[in-house]
Protein backbone atom coordinates (compact mmCIF):
# COMPACT_ATOMS: atom_id res chain seq x y z
CA UNK A 1 0.00 0.00 0.00
CA UNK A 2 1.26 3.45 -0.96
CA UNK A 3 1.68 6.14 1.72
CA UNK A 4 -1.32 8.38 2.25
CA UNK A 5 -1.59 11.66 0.31
CA UNK A 6 -4.83 12.93 1.88
CA UNK A 7 -6.61 11.86 5.02
CA UNK A 8 -9.97 13.23 6.12
CA UNK A 9 -11.21 12.68 9.65
CA UNK A 10 -14.93 12.97 10.36
CA UNK A 11 -15.49 15.95 8.13
CA UNK A 12 -18.94 17.49 7.91
CA UNK A 13 -20.11 20.39 5.79
CA UNK A 14 -23.29 22.39 6.07
CA UNK A 15 -24.46 24.68 3.29
CA UNK A 16 -27.24 26.83 4.67
CA UNK A 17 -29.55 24.46 6.54
CA UNK A 18 -28.53 21.45 4.48
CA UNK A 19 -26.02 18.89 5.73
CA UNK A 20 -24.00 18.22 2.57
CA UNK A 21 -21.35 15.98 4.12
CA UNK A 22 -21.75 13.92 7.29
CA UNK A 23 -18.78 12.52 9.17
CA UNK A 24 -16.75 11.58 6.14
CA UNK A 25 -13.46 9.80 6.84
CA UNK A 26 -11.41 8.62 3.90
CA UNK A 27 -7.82 7.87 3.02
CA UNK A 28 -6.39 8.71 -0.39
CA UNK A 29 -3.26 6.82 -1.36
CA UNK A 30 -0.45 8.66 -3.08
CA UNK A 31 0.56 7.84 -6.67
CA UNK A 32 -2.93 6.48 -7.34
CA UNK A 33 -5.90 7.75 -9.31
CA UNK A 34 -9.03 7.85 -7.16
CA UNK A 35 -12.46 8.75 -8.45
CA UNK A 36 -15.47 9.95 -6.55
CA UNK A 37 -18.78 8.85 -8.06
CA UNK A 38 -22.40 9.13 -7.01
CA UNK A 39 -25.71 10.63 -8.08
CA UNK A 40 -26.39 14.38 -8.29
CA UNK A 41 -26.35 16.03 -4.87
CA UNK A 42 -24.36 13.19 -3.29
CA UNK A 43 -21.72 15.64 -2.01
CA UNK A 44 -18.90 14.66 -4.41
CA UNK A 45 -17.82 18.20 -5.34
CA UNK A 46 -18.15 19.33 -1.73
CA UNK A 47 -15.89 16.51 -0.61
CA UNK A 48 -13.32 17.46 -3.25
CA UNK A 49 -13.46 21.12 -2.19
CA UNK A 50 -13.11 20.07 1.44
CA UNK A 51 -10.02 18.01 0.52
CA UNK A 52 -8.60 21.09 -1.23
CA UNK A 53 -9.29 23.22 1.85
CA UNK A 54 -11.51 25.58 -0.13
CA UNK A 55 -14.58 25.52 2.13
CA UNK A 56 -15.08 25.71 5.88
CA UNK A 57 -15.55 22.27 7.41
CA UNK A 58 -15.99 20.52 10.72
CA UNK A 59 -13.34 17.87 11.19
CA UNK A 60 -9.79 17.60 9.91
CA UNK A 61 -8.00 17.13 6.59
CA UNK A 62 -4.38 16.01 6.68
CA UNK A 63 -1.80 15.98 3.90
CA UNK A 64 0.87 13.60 5.22
CA UNK A 65 3.19 14.21 2.25
CA UNK A 66 3.53 17.95 2.96
CA UNK A 67 6.70 18.18 4.94
CA UNK A 68 6.20 21.66 6.45
CA UNK A 69 5.07 21.49 10.08
CA UNK A 70 2.44 24.19 9.71
CA UNK A 71 1.93 24.59 5.96
CA UNK A 72 1.03 28.05 4.72
CA UNK A 73 -1.53 28.70 1.99
CA UNK A 74 1.34 28.88 -0.50
CA UNK A 75 2.84 25.58 0.69
CA UNK A 76 -0.53 23.95 0.16
CA UNK A 77 -1.02 25.65 -3.21
CA UNK A 78 2.34 24.33 -4.44
CA UNK A 79 1.42 20.86 -3.27
CA UNK A 80 -2.25 20.63 -4.29
CA UNK A 81 -3.64 21.74 -7.63
CA UNK A 82 -7.37 22.33 -8.08
CA UNK A 83 -9.51 22.31 -11.21
CA UNK A 84 -13.11 23.32 -10.55
CA UNK A 85 -16.13 22.40 -12.63
CA UNK A 86 -17.39 24.73 -15.38
CA UNK A 87 -15.05 27.56 -14.45
CA UNK A 88 -16.28 30.73 -16.09
CA UNK A 89 -14.58 34.13 -16.36
CA UNK A 90 -11.08 35.19 -17.39
CA UNK A 91 -12.53 35.76 -20.87
CA UNK A 92 -10.01 38.47 -21.68
CA UNK A 93 -6.97 36.43 -20.70
CA UNK A 94 -5.02 34.48 -23.30
CA UNK A 95 -4.57 30.74 -22.93
CA UNK A 96 -0.90 31.36 -22.08
CA UNK A 97 -1.80 33.92 -19.39
CA UNK A 98 -4.32 31.51 -17.87
CA UNK A 99 -1.76 28.70 -17.76
CA UNK A 100 0.75 31.12 -16.19
CA UNK A 101 -1.71 31.69 -13.32
CA UNK A 102 -0.81 28.16 -12.27
CA UNK A 103 2.65 29.45 -11.38
CA UNK A 104 1.37 31.96 -8.79
CA UNK A 105 2.16 29.65 -5.86
CA UNK A 106 5.78 29.48 -7.03
CA UNK A 107 6.29 33.21 -7.53
CA UNK A 108 6.68 36.04 -5.05
CA UNK A 109 3.89 38.65 -4.69
CA UNK A 110 5.59 40.86 -7.28
CA UNK A 111 8.02 38.37 -8.80
CA UNK A 112 8.13 38.03 -12.58
CA UNK A 113 8.01 34.70 -14.39
CA UNK A 114 11.33 32.86 -14.48
CA UNK A 115 12.66 30.20 -16.83
CA UNK A 116 11.22 27.43 -14.65
CA UNK A 117 7.75 29.05 -14.80
CA UNK A 118 7.87 29.44 -18.57
CA UNK A 119 9.06 25.88 -19.01
CA UNK A 120 6.27 24.51 -16.75
CA UNK A 121 3.65 26.49 -18.68
CA UNK A 122 5.00 25.40 -22.06
CA UNK A 123 5.03 21.77 -21.01
CA UNK A 124 1.44 21.99 -19.61
CA UNK A 125 0.19 23.65 -22.78
CA UNK A 126 1.89 21.07 -24.97
CA UNK A 127 0.54 18.14 -22.93
CA UNK A 128 -3.00 19.49 -23.27
CA UNK A 129 -2.40 20.28 -26.97
CA UNK A 130 -3.10 23.96 -26.38
CA UNK A 131 0.35 25.31 -27.23
CA UNK A 132 -0.50 26.12 -30.86
CA UNK A 133 -3.31 28.48 -29.85
CA UNK A 134 -1.76 29.88 -26.69
CA UNK A 135 -2.32 33.48 -27.83
CA UNK A 136 -6.08 33.06 -28.27
CA UNK A 137 -8.39 34.52 -25.63
CA UNK A 138 -10.60 32.33 -23.48
CA UNK A 139 -13.76 34.00 -24.74
CA UNK A 140 -12.92 32.88 -28.28
CA UNK A 141 -12.54 29.21 -27.38
CA UNK A 142 -15.03 26.36 -27.66
CA UNK A 143 -16.11 24.63 -24.44
CA UNK A 144 -13.64 21.78 -25.01
CA UNK A 145 -10.74 24.08 -25.84
CA UNK A 146 -11.49 26.15 -22.77
CA UNK A 147 -11.47 23.02 -20.61
CA UNK A 148 -8.05 22.06 -22.01
CA UNK A 149 -6.68 25.55 -21.28
CA UNK A 150 -7.95 25.29 -17.71
CA UNK A 151 -6.45 21.82 -17.37
CA UNK A 152 -3.13 23.31 -18.53
CA UNK A 153 -3.44 25.89 -15.73
CA UNK A 154 -3.91 23.09 -13.20
CA UNK A 155 -0.99 21.09 -14.61
CA UNK A 156 1.31 24.14 -14.67
CA UNK A 157 1.24 24.19 -10.86
CA UNK A 158 3.33 20.98 -11.00
CA UNK A 159 1.69 19.87 -7.78
CA UNK A 160 1.98 16.41 -6.26
CA UNK A 161 -1.77 16.15 -5.79
CA UNK A 162 -4.33 17.11 -8.45
CA UNK A 163 -7.99 17.49 -7.54
CA UNK A 164 -10.28 17.78 -10.56
CA UNK A 165 -14.02 18.30 -10.53
CA UNK A 166 -15.68 17.02 -13.70
CA UNK A 167 -12.61 17.58 -15.87
CA UNK A 168 -14.22 15.80 -18.83
CA UNK A 169 -17.12 18.22 -19.21
CA UNK A 170 -17.19 19.66 -22.73
CA UNK A 171 -14.41 17.35 -23.95
CA UNK A 172 -15.13 15.28 -27.06
CA UNK A 173 -14.27 11.52 -26.98
CA UNK A 174 -10.75 11.88 -28.47
CA UNK A 175 -9.86 14.56 -25.92
CA UNK A 176 -11.39 12.47 -23.13
CA UNK A 177 -8.95 9.74 -24.13
CA UNK A 178 -6.13 12.32 -24.14
CA UNK A 179 -7.13 13.34 -20.62
CA UNK A 180 -7.00 9.70 -19.59
CA UNK A 181 -3.47 9.46 -21.01
CA UNK A 182 -2.46 12.60 -19.10
CA UNK A 183 -3.76 11.15 -15.84
CA UNK A 184 -2.01 7.81 -16.42
CA UNK A 185 1.21 9.71 -17.14
CA UNK A 186 0.82 11.76 -13.95
CA UNK A 187 0.31 8.61 -11.91
CA UNK A 188 3.41 7.17 -13.60
CA UNK A 189 5.33 10.21 -12.33
CA UNK A 190 4.18 9.46 -8.78
CA UNK A 191 1.46 12.14 -8.62
CA UNK A 192 -1.85 11.63 -6.89
CA UNK A 193 -5.06 12.36 -8.81
CA UNK A 194 -8.53 12.62 -7.30
CA UNK A 195 -11.38 13.40 -9.65
CA UNK A 196 -15.13 13.63 -9.68
CA UNK A 197 -16.52 12.06 -12.84
CA UNK A 198 -20.02 11.50 -14.13
CA UNK A 199 -18.71 9.24 -16.88
CA UNK A 200 -18.80 5.99 -14.91
CA UNK A 201 -17.02 3.97 -17.63
CA UNK A 202 -14.13 6.45 -17.48
CA UNK A 203 -14.20 6.42 -13.67
CA UNK A 204 -13.87 2.63 -13.76
CA UNK A 205 -10.43 3.11 -15.37
CA UNK A 206 -9.09 4.55 -12.12
CA UNK A 207 -7.34 2.66 -9.34
CA UNK A 208 -9.93 3.23 -6.68
CA UNK A 209 -13.52 4.40 -6.43
CA UNK A 210 -15.20 6.31 -3.64
CA UNK A 211 -18.94 5.77 -3.93
CA UNK A 212 -21.08 8.48 -2.33
CA UNK A 213 -24.73 9.14 -1.70
CA UNK A 214 -26.58 11.60 0.54
CA UNK A 215 -23.37 13.17 1.86
CA UNK A 216 -21.92 9.87 3.04
CA UNK A 217 -19.34 7.39 1.82
CA UNK A 218 -21.12 4.23 0.81
CA UNK A 219 -18.06 2.34 -0.34
CA UNK A 220 -14.38 2.78 -1.09
CA UNK A 221 -12.53 0.12 -2.99
CA UNK A 222 -10.72 -1.09 -6.07
CA UNK A 223 -12.39 -0.45 -9.41
CA UNK A 224 -12.10 -4.11 -10.30
CA UNK A 225 -13.81 -5.40 -7.15
CA UNK A 226 -17.38 -6.78 -7.51
CA UNK A 227 -18.36 -5.07 -4.22
CA UNK A 228 -17.42 -1.71 -5.72
CA UNK A 229 -19.52 -2.40 -8.80
CA UNK A 230 -22.48 -3.39 -6.64
CA UNK A 231 -22.12 -0.23 -4.56
CA UNK A 232 -22.05 1.93 -7.71
CA UNK A 233 -25.12 0.18 -9.16
CA UNK A 234 -26.95 0.58 -5.84
CA UNK A 235 -26.39 4.35 -5.50
CA UNK A 236 -27.63 4.78 -9.06
CA UNK A 237 -30.81 2.85 -8.14
CA UNK A 238 -29.71 -0.10 -10.26
CA UNK A 239 -30.39 1.93 -13.37
CA UNK A 240 -26.88 1.15 -14.57
CA UNK A 241 -25.13 -2.16 -14.98
CA UNK A 242 -21.38 -2.63 -14.87
CA UNK A 243 -20.19 -5.26 -17.32
CA UNK A 244 -16.83 -6.41 -18.63
CA UNK A 245 -16.50 -5.87 -22.36
CA UNK A 246 -13.22 -6.16 -24.26
CA UNK A 247 -11.22 -6.41 -21.02
CA UNK A 248 -12.72 -3.14 -19.75
CA UNK A 249 -15.34 -2.38 -17.13
CA UNK A 250 -18.18 -0.49 -18.78
CA UNK A 251 -21.30 1.12 -17.33
CA UNK A 252 -24.42 0.48 -19.39
CA UNK A 253 -27.91 1.86 -18.84
CA UNK A 254 -30.38 -0.70 -17.46
CA UNK A 255 -33.96 0.15 -18.31
CA UNK A 256 -36.93 -1.37 -16.49
CA UNK A 257 -38.04 -2.93 -19.75
CA UNK A 258 -34.66 -4.75 -19.92
CA UNK A 259 -35.17 -6.48 -16.56
Amino acid at each position, binding site marked *: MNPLAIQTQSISVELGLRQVLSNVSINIQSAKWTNIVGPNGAGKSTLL*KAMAGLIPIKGEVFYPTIKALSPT*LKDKARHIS*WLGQNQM*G*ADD*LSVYDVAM*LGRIPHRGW*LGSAGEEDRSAVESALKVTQSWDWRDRFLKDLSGGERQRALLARALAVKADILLMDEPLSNLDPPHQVDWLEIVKSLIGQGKTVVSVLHEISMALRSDELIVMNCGQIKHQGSCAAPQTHQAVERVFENKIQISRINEQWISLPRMISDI
Partner: protein
Amino acid sequence: MQKSLKAPAQALLLLGIALTTMTIGVAIGSSGFDNLLNALNDPVALKIIMDIRLPRTLGAWLAGALLGLSGALAQGLFRNPLADPYLLGSASGASLGVACLLVTLGVSANSSSWIFKLSLSGAAFLGAILAVSLTLILSRGVQHTLRLLLAGIIVGVVLGALTSLTIMLDPHIIQTMQSFLLGTTSFIDWDSVSLMGLVWIICTALTWTFSRALDALSLGESTANSLGLNLPPVRAGLIALLALATGTAVSQTGLIAFVGLASPHLVRSIIKVTHNWLLLLSSLMGGVLLLIADLAAKWLIAPQELPVGPITAVLGGLYLLRLMLSLNMNQEGL
Protein backbone atom coordinates in the same frame (compact mmCIF):
# COMPACT_ATOMS: atom_id res chain seq x y z
CA MET B 1 6.35 39.96 -28.41
CA GLN B 2 3.79 41.79 -30.53
CA LYS B 3 1.24 41.61 -27.73
CA SER B 4 3.73 42.80 -25.11
CA LEU B 5 4.36 45.94 -27.18
CA LYS B 6 0.70 46.69 -27.84
CA ALA B 7 -0.15 47.69 -24.28
CA PRO B 8 2.70 50.24 -23.82
CA ALA B 9 1.85 51.63 -27.28
CA GLN B 10 -1.78 52.08 -26.19
CA ALA B 11 -0.64 53.77 -22.99
CA LEU B 12 1.54 56.20 -24.96
CA LEU B 13 -1.32 56.87 -27.39
CA LEU B 14 -3.73 57.64 -24.53
CA LEU B 15 -1.14 59.92 -22.92
CA GLY B 16 -0.68 61.67 -26.26
CA ILE B 17 -4.43 62.19 -26.66
CA ALA B 18 -4.61 63.46 -23.08
CA LEU B 19 -1.79 65.99 -23.68
CA THR B 20 -3.41 67.23 -26.89
CA THR B 21 -6.84 67.53 -25.24
CA MET B 22 -5.27 69.28 -22.24
CA THR B 23 -3.59 71.83 -24.51
CA ILE B 24 -6.91 72.55 -26.23
CA GLY B 25 -8.66 72.61 -22.83
CA VAL B 26 -6.22 75.18 -21.47
CA ALA B 27 -6.70 77.33 -24.58
CA ILE B 28 -10.50 77.36 -24.37
CA GLY B 29 -12.19 79.73 -21.97
CA SER B 30 -15.43 81.68 -21.64
CA SER B 31 -14.16 84.10 -24.30
CA GLY B 32 -13.55 81.27 -26.77
CA PHE B 33 -10.27 79.89 -28.12
CA ASP B 34 -7.14 81.81 -27.06
CA ASN B 35 -3.75 81.51 -28.63
CA LEU B 36 -1.58 80.23 -25.80
CA LEU B 37 1.55 81.89 -27.24
CA ASN B 38 -0.17 85.30 -27.11
CA ALA B 39 -1.11 84.69 -23.48
CA LEU B 40 2.59 84.57 -22.56
CA ASN B 41 2.78 88.32 -23.16
CA ASP B 42 -0.45 89.10 -21.34
CA PRO B 43 -0.16 88.87 -17.53
CA VAL B 44 -3.94 88.70 -17.03
CA ALA B 45 -4.42 85.97 -19.61
CA LEU B 46 -1.44 84.09 -18.16
CA LYS B 47 -2.91 84.32 -14.67
CA ILE B 48 -6.26 82.98 -15.91
CA ILE B 49 -4.51 80.07 -17.58
CA MET B 50 -2.24 79.27 -14.64
CA ASP B 51 -4.80 79.75 -11.84
CA ILE B 52 -8.01 78.54 -13.46
CA ARG B 53 -7.72 76.67 -16.73
CA LEU B 54 -4.58 74.62 -16.13
CA PRO B 55 -5.59 73.24 -12.69
CA ARG B 56 -9.09 72.57 -13.98
CA THR B 57 -7.80 70.68 -17.03
CA LEU B 58 -5.22 68.71 -15.05
CA GLY B 59 -7.82 68.05 -12.35
CA ALA B 60 -10.34 66.77 -14.91
CA TRP B 61 -7.72 64.32 -16.19
CA LEU B 62 -6.84 63.20 -12.66
CA ALA B 63 -10.48 62.77 -11.57
CA GLY B 64 -11.18 60.75 -14.73
CA ALA B 65 -8.02 58.72 -14.16
CA LEU B 66 -9.07 57.94 -10.58
CA LEU B 67 -12.57 56.90 -11.73
CA GLY B 68 -11.20 54.79 -14.60
CA LEU B 69 -8.82 53.03 -12.21
CA SER B 70 -11.65 52.48 -9.71
CA GLY B 71 -13.86 51.07 -12.47
CA ALA B 72 -11.29 48.48 -13.53
CA LEU B 73 -10.66 47.65 -9.89
CA ALA B 74 -14.38 47.24 -9.10
CA GLN B 75 -15.00 45.10 -12.18
CA GLY B 76 -12.06 42.85 -11.31
CA LEU B 77 -12.99 42.60 -7.65
CA PHE B 78 -16.66 41.83 -8.28
CA ARG B 79 -15.93 39.77 -11.40
CA ASN B 80 -18.64 41.72 -13.13
CA PRO B 81 -18.07 43.89 -16.20
CA LEU B 82 -21.02 46.06 -15.18
CA ALA B 83 -19.60 46.89 -11.75
CA ASP B 84 -19.27 50.60 -11.07
CA PRO B 85 -16.85 52.36 -8.69
CA TYR B 86 -19.85 53.78 -6.81
CA LEU B 87 -21.15 50.29 -6.09
CA LEU B 88 -20.11 50.23 -2.43
CA GLY B 89 -22.17 53.31 -1.61
CA SER B 90 -19.38 55.89 -1.86
CA ALA B 91 -21.34 58.22 -4.17
CA SER B 92 -24.46 58.40 -2.02
CA GLY B 93 -22.30 58.70 1.12
CA ALA B 94 -20.41 61.63 -0.39
CA SER B 95 -23.70 63.31 -1.39
CA LEU B 96 -25.12 62.92 2.10
CA GLY B 97 -21.88 64.25 3.59
CA VAL B 98 -22.08 67.38 1.44
CA ALA B 99 -25.80 67.85 2.13
CA CYS B 100 -25.28 67.55 5.90
CA LEU B 101 -22.40 70.03 5.82
CA LEU B 102 -24.41 72.57 3.86
CA VAL B 103 -27.38 72.28 6.21
CA THR B 104 -25.23 72.40 9.34
CA LEU B 105 -23.10 75.38 8.34
CA GLY B 106 -25.76 77.12 6.34
CA VAL B 107 -23.02 78.05 3.86
CA SER B 108 -24.06 80.19 0.95
CA ALA B 109 -24.14 78.41 -2.37
CA ASN B 110 -22.02 81.15 -3.89
CA SER B 111 -19.30 80.94 -1.32
CA SER B 112 -15.92 80.42 -2.92
CA SER B 113 -13.69 80.70 0.13
CA TRP B 114 -11.03 78.04 0.44
CA ILE B 115 -12.43 76.98 3.82
CA PHE B 116 -15.80 76.29 2.18
CA LYS B 117 -14.19 74.30 -0.62
CA LEU B 118 -12.02 72.36 1.80
CA SER B 119 -15.00 71.60 4.04
CA LEU B 120 -17.03 70.49 1.05
CA SER B 121 -14.28 68.13 -0.14
CA GLY B 122 -13.73 66.88 3.39
CA ALA B 123 -17.43 66.19 3.94
CA ALA B 124 -17.72 64.38 0.62
CA PHE B 125 -14.64 62.27 1.32
CA LEU B 126 -15.73 61.48 4.87
CA GLY B 127 -19.23 60.61 3.64
CA ALA B 128 -17.82 58.29 1.00
CA ILE B 129 -15.51 56.51 3.44
CA LEU B 130 -18.24 56.18 6.08
CA ALA B 131 -20.65 54.77 3.49
CA VAL B 132 -18.10 52.16 2.38
CA SER B 133 -17.44 51.31 6.03
CA LEU B 134 -21.19 50.90 6.59
CA THR B 135 -21.34 48.58 3.57
CA LEU B 136 -18.51 46.52 5.04
CA ILE B 137 -20.24 46.33 8.43
CA LEU B 138 -23.54 45.26 6.85
CA SER B 139 -21.84 42.63 4.70
CA ARG B 140 -20.01 41.38 7.82
CA GLY B 141 -16.58 41.79 6.27
CA VAL B 142 -15.22 41.13 2.83
CA GLN B 143 -15.56 37.35 2.61
CA HIS B 144 -18.63 37.22 0.37
CA THR B 145 -18.72 39.19 -2.85
CA LEU B 146 -22.48 38.87 -3.34
CA ARG B 147 -23.16 40.04 0.21
CA LEU B 148 -20.85 43.01 -0.38
CA LEU B 149 -22.71 43.94 -3.55
CA LEU B 150 -26.13 43.71 -1.89
CA ALA B 151 -24.95 45.69 1.13
CA GLY B 152 -23.55 48.35 -1.24
CA ILE B 153 -26.89 48.61 -3.02
CA ILE B 154 -28.78 48.91 0.27
CA VAL B 155 -26.43 51.61 1.57
CA GLY B 156 -26.67 53.46 -1.75
CA VAL B 157 -30.47 53.48 -1.76
CA VAL B 158 -30.87 54.42 1.91
CA LEU B 159 -28.24 57.18 1.90
CA GLY B 160 -29.65 58.49 -1.38
CA ALA B 161 -33.07 58.76 0.24
CA LEU B 162 -31.55 60.50 3.28
CA THR B 163 -29.83 63.01 0.97
CA SER B 164 -33.16 63.79 -0.71
CA LEU B 165 -34.78 64.24 2.70
CA THR B 166 -31.98 66.57 3.82
CA ILE B 167 -32.40 68.69 0.69
CA MET B 168 -36.16 68.79 1.32
CA LEU B 169 -35.58 70.05 4.87
CA ASP B 170 -33.41 72.95 3.65
CA PRO B 171 -34.26 74.02 0.08
CA HIS B 172 -31.51 76.71 0.20
CA ILE B 173 -28.89 74.07 -0.46
CA ILE B 174 -30.53 72.83 -3.67
CA GLN B 175 -28.32 74.86 -6.01
CA THR B 176 -25.03 73.76 -4.46
CA MET B 177 -26.24 70.19 -4.15
CA GLN B 178 -27.28 70.23 -7.77
CA SER B 179 -23.82 71.16 -8.98
CA PHE B 180 -22.37 68.43 -6.76
CA LEU B 181 -24.86 65.80 -7.92
CA LEU B 182 -24.40 66.75 -11.57
CA GLY B 183 -20.63 66.66 -11.27
CA THR B 184 -18.47 69.63 -12.17
CA THR B 185 -14.82 70.37 -12.76
CA SER B 186 -15.18 74.12 -12.33
CA PHE B 187 -14.23 74.13 -8.62
CA ILE B 188 -10.89 72.37 -9.15
CA ASP B 189 -7.87 74.38 -8.01
CA TRP B 190 -4.21 73.56 -7.47
CA ASP B 191 -4.94 72.06 -4.02
CA SER B 192 -7.39 69.65 -5.62
CA VAL B 193 -4.83 68.80 -8.29
CA SER B 194 -2.15 68.09 -5.68
CA LEU B 195 -4.49 65.90 -3.64
CA MET B 196 -5.80 63.93 -6.62
CA GLY B 197 -2.30 63.62 -8.09
CA LEU B 198 -0.93 62.18 -4.86
CA VAL B 199 -3.85 59.76 -4.45
CA TRP B 200 -3.59 58.70 -8.12
CA ILE B 201 0.10 57.86 -7.77
CA ILE B 202 -0.51 55.91 -4.54
CA CYS B 203 -3.54 54.05 -5.88
CA THR B 204 -2.00 53.24 -9.27
CA ALA B 205 1.16 51.86 -7.66
CA LEU B 206 -0.71 49.83 -5.05
CA THR B 207 -3.41 48.44 -7.36
CA TRP B 208 -0.64 47.29 -9.68
CA THR B 209 0.66 45.08 -6.88
CA PHE B 210 -2.78 43.43 -6.74
CA SER B 211 -3.01 42.87 -10.51
CA ARG B 212 -1.97 39.20 -10.42
CA ALA B 213 -4.50 38.53 -7.66
CA LEU B 214 -7.20 40.13 -9.83
CA ASP B 215 -6.18 37.88 -12.74
CA ALA B 216 -6.49 34.84 -10.49
CA LEU B 217 -9.84 36.08 -9.14
CA SER B 218 -11.17 36.24 -12.69
CA LEU B 219 -11.28 32.41 -12.65
CA GLY B 220 -13.33 32.41 -9.46
CA GLU B 221 -12.66 32.58 -5.75
CA SER B 222 -12.04 28.85 -5.36
CA THR B 223 -9.32 28.89 -7.99
CA ALA B 224 -7.76 32.05 -6.55
CA ASN B 225 -7.82 30.44 -3.12
CA SER B 226 -6.32 27.22 -4.44
CA LEU B 227 -3.45 29.25 -5.89
CA GLY B 228 -2.44 30.28 -2.38
CA LEU B 229 -4.01 33.75 -2.33
CA ASN B 230 -5.30 34.77 1.06
CA LEU B 231 -8.50 36.37 -0.17
CA PRO B 232 -9.80 38.34 2.86
CA PRO B 233 -6.73 40.65 3.08
CA VAL B 234 -6.60 40.90 -0.73
CA ARG B 235 -10.27 41.98 -0.85
CA ALA B 236 -9.78 44.37 2.07
CA GLY B 237 -6.81 46.00 0.30
CA LEU B 238 -8.69 46.32 -2.97
CA ILE B 239 -11.75 47.81 -1.26
CA ALA B 240 -9.59 50.32 0.64
CA LEU B 241 -8.00 51.45 -2.65
CA LEU B 242 -11.40 51.57 -4.35
CA ALA B 243 -12.81 53.72 -1.56
CA LEU B 244 -9.77 56.02 -1.52
CA ALA B 245 -9.71 56.57 -5.30
CA THR B 246 -13.48 57.00 -5.68
CA GLY B 247 -13.87 59.08 -2.51
CA THR B 248 -11.09 61.46 -3.59
CA ALA B 249 -12.50 61.93 -7.11
CA VAL B 250 -16.06 62.44 -5.87
CA SER B 251 -14.96 64.88 -3.19
CA GLN B 252 -13.30 67.12 -5.79
CA THR B 253 -15.70 66.89 -8.71
CA GLY B 254 -19.04 65.59 -7.41
CA LEU B 255 -20.79 62.64 -9.00
CA ILE B 256 -19.51 61.98 -12.48
CA ALA B 257 -21.35 59.12 -14.08
CA PHE B 258 -20.19 56.33 -16.38
CA VAL B 259 -16.47 57.21 -16.61
CA GLY B 260 -15.62 54.39 -14.18
CA LEU B 261 -17.94 51.96 -15.88
CA ALA B 262 -17.09 52.77 -19.49
CA SER B 263 -13.28 53.17 -19.31
CA PRO B 264 -12.40 49.47 -18.73
CA HIS B 265 -14.97 48.49 -21.39
CA LEU B 266 -13.40 50.79 -23.94
CA VAL B 267 -9.94 49.47 -23.13
CA ARG B 268 -11.11 45.86 -23.47
CA SER B 269 -12.72 46.63 -26.81
CA ILE B 270 -9.35 47.87 -28.07
CA ILE B 271 -6.94 45.44 -26.44
CA LYS B 272 -7.11 42.31 -24.28
CA VAL B 273 -4.58 42.45 -21.48
CA THR B 274 -3.95 41.14 -18.00
CA HIS B 275 -4.88 43.35 -15.05
CA ASN B 276 -1.44 44.96 -14.69
CA TRP B 277 -2.07 46.78 -17.98
CA LEU B 278 -5.87 46.89 -17.77
CA LEU B 279 -5.74 48.96 -14.57
CA LEU B 280 -3.28 51.49 -15.98
CA LEU B 281 -4.93 51.73 -19.41
CA SER B 282 -8.41 52.11 -17.85
CA SER B 283 -7.05 54.90 -15.71
CA LEU B 284 -5.53 56.67 -18.72
CA MET B 285 -8.76 56.12 -20.67
CA GLY B 286 -10.81 57.59 -17.80
CA GLY B 287 -8.60 60.67 -17.86
CA VAL B 288 -9.08 61.12 -21.60
CA LEU B 289 -12.87 60.60 -21.37
CA LEU B 290 -13.31 63.22 -18.67
CA LEU B 291 -11.01 65.67 -20.46
CA ILE B 292 -13.09 65.35 -23.65
CA ALA B 293 -16.34 65.66 -21.69
CA ASP B 294 -14.94 68.73 -19.90
CA LEU B 295 -13.98 70.25 -23.22
CA ALA B 296 -17.51 69.64 -24.50
CA ALA B 297 -18.94 71.16 -21.30
CA LYS B 298 -17.01 74.37 -21.94
CA TRP B 299 -17.59 74.52 -25.67
CA LEU B 300 -21.13 73.24 -26.41
CA ILE B 301 -23.09 76.32 -25.27
CA ALA B 302 -20.19 78.79 -24.88
CA PRO B 303 -19.91 81.32 -23.31
CA GLN B 304 -22.25 79.46 -20.93
CA GLU B 305 -20.95 76.26 -19.41
CA LEU B 306 -22.58 72.89 -18.85
CA PRO B 307 -21.84 70.68 -15.84
CA VAL B 308 -19.64 67.82 -16.98
CA GLY B 309 -21.70 65.07 -15.28
CA PRO B 310 -24.65 65.13 -17.70
CA ILE B 311 -22.25 64.99 -20.65
CA THR B 312 -20.47 61.88 -19.33
CA ALA B 313 -23.91 60.42 -18.52
CA VAL B 314 -25.18 60.95 -22.08
CA LEU B 315 -21.94 59.68 -23.65
CA GLY B 316 -21.84 56.70 -21.29
CA GLY B 317 -25.52 55.95 -21.84
CA LEU B 318 -25.02 55.94 -25.61
CA TYR B 319 -22.01 53.67 -25.24
CA LEU B 320 -23.95 51.22 -23.04
CA LEU B 321 -26.83 51.28 -25.51
CA ARG B 322 -24.43 50.38 -28.31
CA LEU B 323 -23.00 47.60 -26.13
CA MET B 324 -26.51 46.29 -25.40
CA LEU B 325 -27.50 46.33 -29.06
CA SER B 326 -24.33 44.52 -30.10
CA LEU B 327 -25.00 41.89 -27.41
CA ASN B 328 -28.54 41.38 -28.72
CA MET B 329 -27.26 41.03 -32.25
CA ASN B 330 -24.66 38.49 -31.17
CA GLN B 331 -27.27 36.47 -29.31
CA GLU B 332 -29.61 36.52 -32.28
CA GLY B 333 -26.75 35.42 -34.44
CA LEU B 334 -26.12 32.38 -32.27
